[in-house]
């Protein structure tokens, strides 16, 4: 079973994503802030990371940096508001994220993208 780390401070969004991914048979690890995200990256076995950009303590870019250094093989999907700076999005892609999903989003669409990344 694939294990996905979800780093999202909005309880409802993370729960929805978790619910949808569980429906597709994935195992999920849910954390609410950047520090917990870093800890999870260090300690957990992961197949994918889904992270928001604006999260407490550490931002999404720092999480990506850390993940790239410690688990370069793990694909990352960035969830972020459209209003956020283009620079951040570009930086995320430069760091090698697998996909970027702007908010508002459809959890079903996220599930399809996750499936596509695993398939490829």
């Amino acid at each position: 079973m694939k294990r996905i780390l979800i780093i999202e401070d909005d309880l409802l969004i993370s729960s929805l994503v978790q619910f949808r991914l569980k429906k597709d048979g994935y195992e999920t690890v849910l954390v609410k802030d950047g520090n917990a995200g870093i800890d999870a990256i260090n300690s957990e076995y992961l197949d994918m990371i889904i992270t928001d950009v604006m999260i407490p303590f550490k931002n999404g870019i720092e999480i990506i940096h850390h993940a790239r250094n410690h688990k370069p093989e793990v694909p990352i999907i960035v969830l972020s508001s459209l209003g956020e700076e283009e620079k951040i999005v570009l930086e995320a892609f430069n760091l090698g994220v697998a996909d970027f999903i702007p908010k508002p989003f459809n959890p079903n669409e996220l599930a399809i993208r996750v499936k596509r990344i695993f398939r490829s």
Partner: protein
Amino acid sequence: MSVRNTVSLVFLLLGIVNASVVFGQDDEVFADSTSFADFLMNQGEVPGLQFQLIDTEAISYDSSTSIIGSYVDFAKANSVKDSLSSAGISFPSMRFLIFSEANTFQAVQEYVSILLLNGEIEPKTAESSTDLDLITLASRERYSPLFTAKYFSYSGDFKIFIVILTISIFFIFAFFMILFMLIFKAKRNRNEKLKAIYDEQIVGPLSEILFEKSLEELESLSNEELYLNFPEKQLKKAIYVEVLVDRIIALNKKMKGDFKLKLKALYKRLELDKVSIKKLKSSKWDRVVSGLVEVNEMDLTEAVGEVNKHINSSNFHVRSQAVATILNLSESVDLSFLRDQTFPLSRWQQMNYLRIIKYLSSSRDLQINSLFSSTNQSIRLFGYKLVRVLGLVELLAELEVNFVSVSDEEKIEILKAFEYLGVPANPSLINESLRSDNFKVVSIAAKAAGAIGDESNAVTICEILKTGPEFGLKLVLLKSLKNLHPERYQQFVEQGTDPELQRINKHLIDPLLQDV
């Protein structure tokens, strides 16, 4: 009583003075009766001399009972006499006895003088005045306050009462403040805890219902099924409902596609729309704004009537949100409601409305031209900006007609619209603006002439340049003329002798500097 004392003292002094005169004539041991009285006061006991205090009122009835007391010390006798007088008990007179026989004051003075002359008594030196004397003197006068309050006989107590009352009020107020704060904080903490609990309770059922049920299933959800996820008991609790509303609204902002529709269906199924509409009737502006946001997010078209009531609200936030909500919700509404607004539109409001209008203008006739006839200048300006931003070329003719009668600020906006859309305006419109006294109008007109002007505008620009305008204006006009009519510009520069003109020309023809 004091009058009587004074009178008796005066008589005594007169007697003493008289005696001293007599005494002074004989041997002059005592200069006067006062010095003799002082001598007796200091001397204490004098052999053979006695002083009796006689009650003057009782003497007429019985002479034996009229003696108040006998004293060998004059000072003591005098002190008792004064005490009785000041206490108002009686007003005794003093009788002088020499070897137990009553005598006059003069006789006593003579007797004492002889004793002194014969050296039978030693005069005592006067003791230094002590506090005791002062206390004795003070005790002769009955206490009476220097100032007396008219209405409060115990003014001192009244002041203390006021101070105590003030301190008490302060402590009572402080106590209730602390009590209120504690209650308020406890209540807020309780609400926060409840919200966190309800949040946890809501997340699961909400996720499940959104993924498990289709839109049709959600719309036809039975009460039993609904209450299975969201208990009826909980739905009666205000905080639970508040959390539910907040969560659905927040989720609606972050979701797209069929999730949005499902959330709206669930919102109505849970009868949360009634909660939102009720908020619109609140007297608190923040609740009204929150209600307006909810109505807007959930597309509650049935609330349009209620929202309309807030369009001209005196509160900025209510007004802004109401207009945004009406624009979003109403299918039939045009911008005529905005025309009648009396409050000026802020830049933030304009930006907010523009975002909505931009989205709606393609699918709906918003009658933007109705804004041109508004009595509110900021609304008219917003209308001109909309023409420019939305590219409404068909409305330019209307702007051209209005141009003559509007203010400079509006002229600038109209000229900007013409220039931005690249539609040639009536040459007289630009010519008239070029001759304006307002530098900003001339500057914008020159810029517009450069883009959409004609021959007549070039002539006008040359005429103005010949009048020798200030440097800034000269630069703008030359730049415009260069764009509008390069030949005429060249000719003008060649003919001109003004060194400033040549400097500007060098700047404008320099490929590196011309856009600086």
